[in-house]
């Protein structure tokens, strides 16, 4: 393992920026979010970001096609595949699992070419957590926040950034950085990193969600879950906004839209969409989910039931806790899961009596 004085973080980011476009957490206006290196703000390795970095693979808006009417002809021009290396820096364990969830969607047959191109050109530099928040519950999904599991894992501890290149991509990037970054050798298992991990475990046990378990049996309970009275209890005050969807590292629905860009020109692009949205899934007769309850139910059924059904039990949730912080009216997946699991357990008990 290597290490770098945190005072040299700018040097590291500058050197990374020579290897590819760098996407990293920056703080501006009192908020931290992933942004492209070179934008305003200070790099921030302490605070959690408002949004997940999923847009590095799945941008909110992505052009697909341009078409121009030329007399009686229509000239089509597909948007070129994204090119060039990209380095995501400071990605936590939860968001790295988020990428893995997106992979299951976009890389399954038929592969999404745009996503695949971005994925192939992406090198992920993970960041070990030191101070999880009360909203964090990545451990519910078997993750270890102290071990991000990226191409390169890093830890900010005792004034240094510890650097562990784990994969071929990570090692190649480390080699390419060469002498431009003042790395020092840090031995096999630096004490500072081990101390941070131990402190994290102690801290974790004090947090309110430390024992949270998501019930795997929900995936086998599709119909009872669908018809559960829980939805009638929780859905009525959902605003139907897309905040939870858009901060989520695993929500991946998109819409394809055409926008006229000139008298004879149109651009086709895709953009994030949300099942919470009233005009989601427009079929000839409109949205099949007519009301708030149906739309609210869809989002959580997808995350807790349908996705695990289709993907060997993997929940479409990674425990990043962003939706717990962002919901304007404090509804979220933890509350839904608890209510649903409790209700189904009660039903099962009644059934066996």
């Amino acid at each position: 393992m290597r290490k770098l004085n945190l005072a040299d973080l700018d040097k590291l980011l500058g050197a990374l920026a020579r290897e590819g476009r760098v996407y990293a957490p920056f703080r501006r206006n009192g908020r931290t979010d992933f942004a492209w290196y070179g934008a305003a703000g200070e790099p921030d390795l302490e605070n959690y970001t408002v949004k997940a970095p999923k847009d590095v693979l799945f941008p909110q808006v992505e052009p697909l096609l341009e078409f121009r009417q030329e007399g009686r002809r229509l000239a089509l021009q597909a948007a070129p595949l994204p090119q060039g290396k990209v380095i995501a820096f400071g990605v936590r364990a939860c968001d790295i699992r988020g990428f893995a969830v997106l992979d299951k969607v976009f890389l399954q047959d038929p592969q999404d070419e745009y996503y695949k191109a971005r994925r192939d050109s992406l090198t992920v530099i993970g960041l070990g957590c030191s101070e999880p928040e009360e909203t964090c519950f990545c451990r519910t999904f078997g993750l270890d926040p102290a071990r991000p599991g990226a191409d390169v894992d890093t830890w900010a501890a005792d004034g240094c950034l510890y650097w562990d290149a784990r994969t071929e991509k990570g090692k190649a990037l480390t080699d390419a950085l060469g002498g431009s970054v003042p790395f020092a050798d840090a031995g096999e298992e630096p004490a500072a990193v081990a101390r941070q991990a131990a402190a994290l475990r102690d801290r974790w046990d004090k947090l309110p969600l430390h024992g949270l378990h998501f019930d795997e049996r929900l995936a086998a309970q599709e119909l009872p879950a669908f018809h559960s009275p829980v939805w009638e209890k929780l859905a009525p005050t959902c605003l139907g906004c897309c905040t939870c969807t858009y901060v989520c590292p695993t929500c991946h629905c998109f819409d394809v839209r055409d926008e006229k860009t000139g008298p004879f020109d149109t651009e086709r692009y895709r953009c994030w969409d949300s099942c919470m949205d009233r005009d989601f899934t427009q079929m000839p007769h409109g949205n099949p989910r007519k009301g708030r309850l149906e739309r609210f139910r869809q989002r959580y059924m997808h995350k807790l039931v349908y996705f695990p059904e289709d993907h060997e039990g993997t929940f479409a949730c990674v425990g990043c806790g962003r939706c717990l912080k962002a919901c304007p009216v404090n509804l979220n997946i933890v509350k839904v899961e608890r209510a649903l699991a409790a209700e189904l357990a009660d039903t099962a008990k009644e059934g066996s009596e």
Partner: protein
Amino acid sequence: MQKIEELMREKAAALLQDGTADCVLAWRRGEFPYDHATAVFHTGEELEELTYDCFCPANLAKYLIQTSRAGQKAAVFLKPCDTYGVNQLLKDHRIRRDLVHAVGTPCGGMLDIRKIRAAGCRGIVAIEDRGGDVAVTCAGGPVTLPRAAVLLRKCLACKGNDYKIADEEIGAKQAVPQAPADRFAEVEAIEAMTPEGRFAFWQQELSRCIRCNACRDVCPACSCEQCIFDHPGSGADGKAYADASQEALFHVIRAFHVAGRCTGCGECGRVCPEGIRLDLLNGKFAKDINTCFGPYQPGEDAETPAPQFTFRPGDPDPDTAVRNEDRRDGHA
């Protein structure tokens, strides 16, 4: 505030029991000390989960649209500032007065969990509102913060502790959290900028928009049956645009649309995940209306029509009025 919460439970139970209300709009206790969800209660048994303290900032008025539309009689607990929203919805004919039972609920100012986090509180386990200060228990140890430093922005310019509509009141009125700040001070600071500076400010703010629509969906003045921005036939139903400047247009159009009906409840600014100062955009309109037509507070009552919706001889031309005001202030 423990006592108010108990009064609310008793009141809610009585209103459901005697048929005054088919449902009760209030808050349900959360996972953490601060994340109480807005909730609809239908039975006495559920009321155990009803809670109320300094983390109930949400304005429940907007939910009255759906209860009214469903023909349900709804009892709703309203903080003084929330009552403006109810009046405005009545004025806009979005809710039925006979289906609303308004219960005035005292408020001593709501706290902002984002400010508490920004003050360095991580891994929050407990929060105690001690009046003058707020004691936060974090995984790393206790932190004490002055209450004034963590009040929600909207509470810094509190409109006062009077209920503008209430069928009954519970508990004793609480003092306004602090001497209210000038509501338009920040708007004036933006007016004082150069046009380039102002453009840069708004570009900086609005470029962060992720089009989650939370500002619109929480807004009691945004009460259309279907928003033009969601209507597939409108030609304006963007979810996100390839051209980012259109994101800004969404907010500008919305601000025009709610002008004269926006009560200044500040919910748009509170709910924005990106912390965009939408309240300032609406505040500018409120200030200009005051300048052009004299003081007007939407939601003060349920009858007085907004100045833009009435013609009075002597009404100034808005453009001229605002320019004259600018000249008086010494701007170009």
